[in-house]
């Protein structure tokens, strides 16, 4: 099939003009057409969030381009989840701006969330619904055309078709995580945001999930933003890593480059170094 390039104008083009020169033309493999979007898929500038006077997120700039697979890492309390929740519009930043494919939060939250999928290891699902019902509900909220087909396809993709008739409240935490990820990709999102996606999974299931996620990203050009404490997982999933500590970005780059710049063989060493530093700073306070 001959693919026709299409340039995206409107708010997207405007956001590109406001850029700092790092923006580039992106090829979106997720579309029937070869879309040419000018600008980053996710553009967060100067994000600040404090709770009771303590800065959880301190002037974070995060740009994620289409097709990137980005790992957001850092010790407990580094500000990862707060950052993700701000990017999803669930928490309002004290300062800063967020745009997703040119849709500015919070004014255009609905349009922005239409192209974002979200799952977290700690998230529950509607208790009294069967898995297939719950997924059809989300497919409806995301405006998926053929809800049944999308749900069947999603369940099949993660090897959990047998869970379709089970009540959500009867799922184990691992099964719930798999259903949550299935929910997050039902509408073929351009940006998939995952918070600790494999935290409660057995190693073999976690491996399967990582493989499927890589398949999804490769097949549909999905951009990935994921937090995890599993450095091996991040190395496997992500081509870029952003390290947070004390609410600030302390490193941003390819996993191997970051490990090298901190003088370690792998990300595990970097993580332990930053976590140790965060602990000693907390002790000093």
């Amino acid at each position, binding site marked *: 099939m001959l693919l026709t390039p299409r340039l995206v104008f409107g708010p997207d083009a405007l956001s590109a003009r406001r850029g700092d020169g790092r923006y580039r033309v992106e090829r979106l493999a997720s579309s029937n057409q070869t879309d040419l979007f000018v600008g980053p898929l996710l553009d967060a500038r100067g994000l600040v969030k404090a709770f009771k006077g303590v800065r959880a997120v301190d002037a974070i700039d995060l740009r994620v381009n289409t097709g990137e697979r980005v790992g957001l890492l850092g010790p407990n309390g580094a500000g990862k989840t707060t950052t993700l929740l701000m990017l*999803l519009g*669930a928490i309002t930043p004290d300062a800063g701006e967020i745009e997703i494919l040119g849709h500015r939060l919070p004014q255009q939250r609905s349009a922005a*969330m239409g192209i974002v999928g*979200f799952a977290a290891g700690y*998230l529950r699902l509607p208790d009294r619904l069967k898995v297939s019902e719950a997924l059809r509900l989300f497919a409806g909220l995301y405006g998926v055309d053929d809800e049944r087909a999308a749900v069947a396809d999603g369940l099949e993709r993660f090897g959990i078709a047998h869970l379709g008739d089970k009540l959500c409240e009867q799922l184990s935490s691992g099964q719930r995580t798999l259903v949550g990820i299935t929910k997050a990709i039902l509408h073929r999102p351009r940006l998939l945001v995952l918070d600790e996606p494999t935290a409660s999974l057995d190693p073999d299931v976690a491996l399967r999930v990582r493989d499927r996620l890589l398949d999804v990203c490769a097949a549909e050009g999905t951009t990935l933003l994921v937090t995890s404490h599993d450095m091996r997982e991040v190395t496997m999933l992500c081509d870029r890593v952003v390290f947070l500590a004390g609410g600030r970005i302390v490193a941003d780059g390819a996993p191997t480059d970051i490990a090298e710049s901190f003088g370690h063989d792998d990300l595990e060493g970097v993580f332990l170094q930053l976590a140790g530093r965060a602990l000693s700073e907390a002790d000093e306070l």
Partner: protein
Amino acid sequence: MSWRRIRTVVRRHLSVMWRSPHRFFDVSVWPLLDVLLWGTLGTFVASESASSKASVAYLLAGICMFHVLYQMQIALATGFMEESTWSRNLLNVLTTPVTEAEYLAGIGLLGLLKLCVSLLTLVVSAFVFFRFNLGSVGWGLVPVSAVLLVCGWAIGFFVIGLILRYGASAEVLAWGIQFVLMALSGVFNPITSIPAALRPIARVLPTTHAFAALRAVVAGDPLPWHDIVVGSIGAFVCAGAAAFYALRMLKVFRERGFITRFS
């Protein structure tokens, strides 16, 4: 506004109701028990005094219209509680394209459906057990119902605001607040019979004017439009204030990161 997303919200809550038979108590068992309780009381009072023959009609019409208020309020409040404090599904919903207005429209529509079922239960049981025909009261019921419907939204919005701000601990108000109104609004009796100290509060409640108009039409008098107009203005002012409060609390909810309470 997306009609499809509104329908999806309705479908979500109907599926939960279908799978949880006890959720039907609100629209079947409680209305039936209310009719039996107030109808029996009215019958007893009527049998004791020849001048109290109309008490059955006052009590049953009162409880039927009280359910308009109750069903709307409880549908909004429990619809939100289902998502927030019971299922802890709020973060999933907040990260979809559904807007606040669409979600409220969905649970409001569900409230109307539940109201229809509960009114059917009330009307049929009042007729079967006490030969009371609510329809005989006439078209005056329509404006009275409309005022109470809007009052129900107002209380529902207010309770949602409280839950957003104070979390699960505010749930108790969802169940109890309408009984405060029942006591102060003169659902079954003129407010001259409630304690004098409480009458100033009763007079400013829009629900008081709606029930005063109801008693007039049940007595066969013309609809007191003055009560309907005052009640309507009061109801819309309360609904506007409550909606403003709920939106303000949603803003606080997002600013203070309260979403973590529900996930």
